[in-house]
Each structure stands twice: as structure tokens, then as C-alpha cells.
């Protein structure tokens, strides 16, 4: 049981970070299906920088910047250019998949080296303590960062003026605009922040869950993050719970797989996506999305 929960937490961390990123973006009124590609970019850039500098932390920082860079591209088209967000998100995914694939082949010729990884939060005796050790101290900082960010984002959204402005922009861009809030500015910032979180989530895959980069290694986690935001009803605590649920499902899947239950491997591959679909079918309809989600905003012309 302890091992199962340990694995669930470990697997939930990247989902939580990516979903929090998407949450920030969606609360500002944008749907970003390019989160998948953003994660992949973060995973790749983080890996390359970590290998180059020999520091995993530098890699994570670079991943955040790379995520923000991808976010800037998305924001330029959707917020400033007011192009359809689904279309641009798809383009971002294609670009990221191609660029990271080509980049990794160009740099490593198909055999990437091992990167330094981000180890447990507190290695040593504390990590050996039953339960508390494996569930807290032996986890990587990605989990702790995710938990902290859940709290911070929740507070910012309800208890600060910038948070209120973000929600106002996502719920009614026109009303926010007439109150002197700059809709493009808020939306661009939200995309940059959210995308850098997705970049960090990607780095957690190549610098903590493994020590290498493989093409397409995000394997749809960015899309599951989209579903988590819906399942979590657009609240940070909801997103945390939904991420833990998906982490648990993945852990369960690996456990069954390791047991050698005789179930063929592809069934396990399919499992998270089927669960996501089922959850969406159950959760949709009741939840309330931000009212201006997915709508481009432009002031009316005179």
C-alpha cells in the first residue's frame, strides 16, 4: 500500500504542475491544447541544459523559460492575433514534436546520454522513515512545488487583486476591459505563467521520472491535464485532487502490469485515456467553465 501511494504521488506530480498551468490559462479565458507540446519542449530543453551544465536545477529553470517561450508564441497568435485557440494549440503540438525530435537526433544521434536528475527532497535517514519518508521526504521537489503552487494559486485567485482581475478577464473580458483591466496583458501573462509551469512539468519527466529524453515522452499527459482541469472544476484544490486520482490510477496500472496479470501490455497503455474519457463523461455538464473560455476579445470599433 505504501509503495502504491508513493508511486501515485510521484506520478501525480507532473500532471499536477501541467494542470495548474492549464488552470491559470483557462481561468483567464483561453483553452490551450498545446500544453502537451509545451511539456515536451520543457522536457527536451530541461534535459539538454541539465546535460550541458551538469545541474538538474539549471535544467528545470531552462525548462520553465522554454515553456514560457512556447507560451509567448501561443499568446502572440491567440491573444494578440485573436486566431482560434484550438488551431494554434494543434500547431504548437506539431511544432514541439518535430523540433524536439529533430533536435534530439541532431544533438545525440538517437542515443541521448544520462542527465543529472533531481533527487529526493531530503535524502538520508529521514527518507527511510516508514510512510512519512517515502511519501514526503523521498519525493522529488516537483511534488512539493506542485502542492505549494496549488496553495499559492488558490490564494492568488481568491485573495489578491491580480487574481480577481484574472478571473474577471476569463469570466467577462468586456466587463474587465471597461474597468481599466488590460485584457491582452492579463491573458498574455497568464499564458506565460501557465506555460512555464507546463515546461517545469515536462522537466519532471526527463529529470526526475527518468534521466533521459525520448521523442514524444509526454505521451498525452498534457491532454490528460486538460481533462484534469475540467474534472477539478476549475479550482486549484479540485485540480490537486483530480491529479492525485490520475496519479493513483497510473500507479495501479503499473502495479498490475508488474504483477504479470497476463493482461497484454497495450491494455495498460490504453487505460489512462479510457479512464479520462469515463471521468469526463461523468464530470462534464455539472461543472461550470469560465464564461468567456475560448473566446477571443476585441474592443468594438466605433
Amino acid at each position, binding site marked *: 500500500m505504501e509503495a502504491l501511494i508513493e508511486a501515485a504521488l510521484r506520478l501525480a506530480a507532473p500532471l499536477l504542475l501541467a494542470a495548474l498551468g492549464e488552470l491559470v490559462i483557462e481561468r483567464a479565458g483561453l483553452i490551450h491544447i498545446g500544453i502537451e507540446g509545451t511539456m515536451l519542449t520543457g522536457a527536451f530543453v530541461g534535459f539538454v541544459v541539465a546535460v550541458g551544465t551538469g545541474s538538474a536545477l539549471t535544467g528545470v529553470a531552462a525548462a520553465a523559460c522554454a515553456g514560457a517561450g512556447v507560451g509567448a508564441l501561443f499568446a502572440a497568435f491567440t491573444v494578440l492575433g485573436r486566431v482560434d485557440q484550438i488551431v494554434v494549440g494543434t500547431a504548437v503540438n506539431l511544432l514541439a514534436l518535430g523540433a524536439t525530435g529533430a533536435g534530439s537526433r541532431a544533438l545525440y544521434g538517437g542515443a541521448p546520454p544520462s542527465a543529472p536528475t533531481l533527487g529526493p527532497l531530503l535524502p538520508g535517514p529521514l527518507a527511510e522513515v516508514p510512510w512519512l519518508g517515502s511519501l514526503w521526504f523521498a519525493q522529488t521537489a516537483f511534488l512539493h512545488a506542485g502542492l505549494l503552487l496549488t496553495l499559492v494559486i488558490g490564494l492568488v485567485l481568491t*485573495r489578491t487583486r491580480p487574481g480577481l482581475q484574472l478571473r474577471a478577464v476569463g469570466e467577462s473580458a468586456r466587463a474587465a476591459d471597461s474597468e481599466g483591466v488590460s485584457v491582452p496583458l492579463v491573458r498574455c501573462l497568464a499564458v506565460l505563467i501557465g506555460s512555464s509551469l507546463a515546461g517545469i512539468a515536462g522537466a519532471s519527466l526527463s529529470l526526475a521520472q527518468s534521466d533521459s529524453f525520448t521523442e514524444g515522452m509526454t505521451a498525452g499527459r498534457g491532454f490528460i491535464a486538460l481533462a484534469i482541469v475540467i474534472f477539478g472544476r476549475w479550482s486549484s484544490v479540485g485540480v490537486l485532487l483530480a491529479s492525485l486520482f490520475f496519479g493513483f490510477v497510473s500507479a495501479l496500472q503499473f502495479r498490475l502490469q508488474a504483477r504479470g496479470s497476463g493482461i497484454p501490455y497495450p491494455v495498460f497503455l490504453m487505460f489512462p485515456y479510457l479512464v479520462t474519457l469515463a471521468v469526463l463523461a461523468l464530470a462534464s455538464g455539472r461543472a461550470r467553465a469560465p464564461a468567456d473560455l475560448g473566446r477571443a476579445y476585441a*474592443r468594438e470599433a*466605433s
Partner: protein
Amino acid sequence: MLDDVSLDVASGEVLALLGENGAGKSTLMNVLCGLVKPDAGVLELGGERIDLAQWGPRAALAHAVGMVHQHSALVPALTVAENLRFGDPQAGLWFHPRAEQRAAEALSRRFGLEVPVGRRVEDLSPGQRQRAEILRALGRGARLLILDEPTAVLTPNEASALFSAVRRLCEAGRAVIFISHKLSEVEAVADRVTILRRGRVVASLAVRDLAARELGRLMLGRDLPPLARRAPPAPRSGEPALALQGLSTSGASEASRLRGLALEVFAGEIVGLVGIDGNGQRELEEVLAGVRRPSAGEVRVAGRRVALQPRALRRAGLAHLSGDRESAGLVRGMSLAQNFILKGSWDDRRFFRHGRIDQAAARRATQAAAQRFGIVPPDPDLDIALLSGGNAQKLAVARELDGEPAVLVAVNPTRGLDVGSARFVHEQLLARSAAGGAVLLLSTELDEVLALADRLLALVRGELREIEAGADRAAIGALLLGAGAG
């Protein structure tokens, strides 16, 4: 579109800005509050010359210009306290819900504007929303308050409460610009009045020098003859053309839930149903358009029960006309001809045969309708998005009257139209009923309903109330008040 407009307002004064729909009142005010950039002009506030290149919503707020928009500019999903605060440049970084709520309550007491500050705006009545919005502008220290058609969503009693609040503000040295197209309101509240017509100032005078008839002429630019009434309808006989029985629905809010509506409209009769937004009009419209399923009750057309789906209703001879472009079923991006045939895609043999469109027939029919109804430009291939509101609405009227429907449901059919177009639509409604059609007119405009209807009903909190023939405006207002008070 504005053309060389000048106006001024002093502290402690109410300036009424009068003009028919489309005269440019709202545009002018949007310039003042920074939402629209003018091509040329000068703006002075408290003697300070403003650089219009730097002018925007934020600058307007900083210069103590507060605007209360015609369509609420509050964020529905946020509480009143949150709405008061999120755009306030003076507020700090943090937002403490409880402290902010107390501050908002204090503000509401200070200005005598009662608002439940802890609730979400989407749960408030229209009157409460408006008070919250005025409160926000005042809390921001607005010296100049702009009210854009503030009474459109209010009951007469709420409106008079608003007028006294406005007077109090002026006595406290604030300046108010009050936008309206109703003469009676101007007389009740304003010191001076400026009249706009087609984007130009045509007159600017003190209210006490004002003769109503003169003012009407200035506003419209011509004397409209009174609406020609047709002969009163023949006494009712036989089956009603339209009958609602025990109609109940869920609603967008508790007040707008329909509760067992029963109503009969006979051939040749116009039944007017007046009500304030949020009292079930929208829900009733959606049921009669076939896009909302009622929880109980039925609709009969000429005695036959009709399935509440758009196609079945249409086939039964019920047409639906709306002043809202979307509810009217007008698709921007499609041509006039395509919009003209839009509702017939399932069964109209003139334009659709064997699943294929007869484009030529559609063009011909549209062109004929455009000629008859004076749609400008009468080009069937033009994107409807390029038409003015009045002309798009004329196309909708042409389409709905095309099949000479036995029952016509018209919902705020002249909303947003200029006087000429509105008059045209009214004439068409009268003509339809004179030709034996039954017309159900749902409107928030009491004047419109009074001018057209043979029989008057009020829709209040999802229920129907009879209005006696000859009831005066105050009595009707009291009846409608059952609505917005909460």
C-alpha cells in the same frame, strides 16, 4: 458614428442626452469613458485638457469619470464586493473578502443604495445590479457619472428611486449625464438636455424651456403620424389560434422560472405581454421557439397540440420574431438569401428539393422580399453581417411573415432599431393581425405594448397577471414591481 459633437456639463447638474436609438448617444459616452477612440476632438475635465491619444478606460477612471453601462459591465461570476474592487487602482494587492464586504456595505449605506454586497452578481435582480454598478463608480470617487439608459431594466418604482438617488448625488456636487430616449424621464430628472440626431447635436437647452412636442420633433427630425390603428378585432369565436396550458419550466434564475402559464390568443388579436428582463420572458420565448423543453404543460396551435421543436412549431403555423440577432436565427457570415431560406432547410419545397438547395429560387424570393420590405441594399448575395441592424431585422420580419403564419410570436421586435424601422415593424405586426393572424407580443417596452396590443398581460416572476383595460402607467408599474424588488 459621430459628427462634430460638442457638449458640456457642470458640477451639481444633470444633463440629459436625448436621442432615438442609433443617434449616437452610446457611442459618445463610450468615447467619454475610453472604450471608443474618436478620430478628432477635444476633451476637458475640470479645466484640464486631456490628451485623447492617452485616453482609455483606465485614464477615464483616473479622471473620476464613472460609467454605468446599458448592458451590465459587472462580472456575473464575481461577488459585488469583488466587482467593486478588482479594477480599483487605489486598492492594494490583497483582497480580504470579509473586510472588503464590510467596506462595501459602508459605501452602500453612505450613498443610500441598497445592494447585497456578498452575493454574486449573477444572482442579483436587474435593479440591484444597476445599484451595484453606480456604487462602484461612486466608490471610485467618480465626479462625473454617466448613466446609459438606466431605466431600461427597471420597474417604474425602481426608476423613481433611481431618480431621487441621482438628485441626491447632484446636491452633493457630482455631475451626471443621463442618457435616455424617453421624454418623461428627462422631465423628471434633468436640468438641461442635449439632443442628438444621426450623430449630430441638434439642440441643447434647459429642461424648463422645453415643450414635449417640440422636443419630439427635434429628436426625430420629422413628425411621425400616430400609428394607424386597425378596427378592433371581431369577437372571439371557436378555438384560440394559440393556447398555452400549464406551462412550467426551469429557468436561468429562480425568478425567471415559468410557473403554470395559461394563455389564449385568438385569430386577429394582438396580445401584449409586458415584463421586465429576468421574469421569464426569455424562457417563454425559448419554449415557443422550440429550443427549451418545458417541465410541464403544453402548447396548442389551432386546437392541436404541437411538439415543442422548432420544426414542428413552424409546420403548425407558428412563426417567431426576435429583436435579438441570435434568437432571431440570423447567421452572420451567410448571405441574405441563405438567411432568408434558413428555417426552411427541412421542409420548404420552394428552396430545398431532394436535399439540394435551389439557389436561384432563394435569390429571387429574397430579392422580392427585399423590394417589398425596403431592405437596403437589396442584394441577396450580400453577407448579412454587413447590413445595419434595422435592415437585418427587416429581413427577419420578411422571413417570418413569408408564410403568412397563423400565429406570430414577436419578442422585443424593435429592440435596437431606429424609430423609422421600429415603426415599420409595428405596422407589419398590425397588418398581420388585420389579415387574421394571431400575434403574441412579448416586450419590455411598455409603450410598445400599449400602442399595439388589444389585450394586456404582465409577466411577473414567471406568472401571468391580468392588466385591466385602461390601467394607467403607475398601476402597471406597481404590478410589474412584483418582480424587481427582491
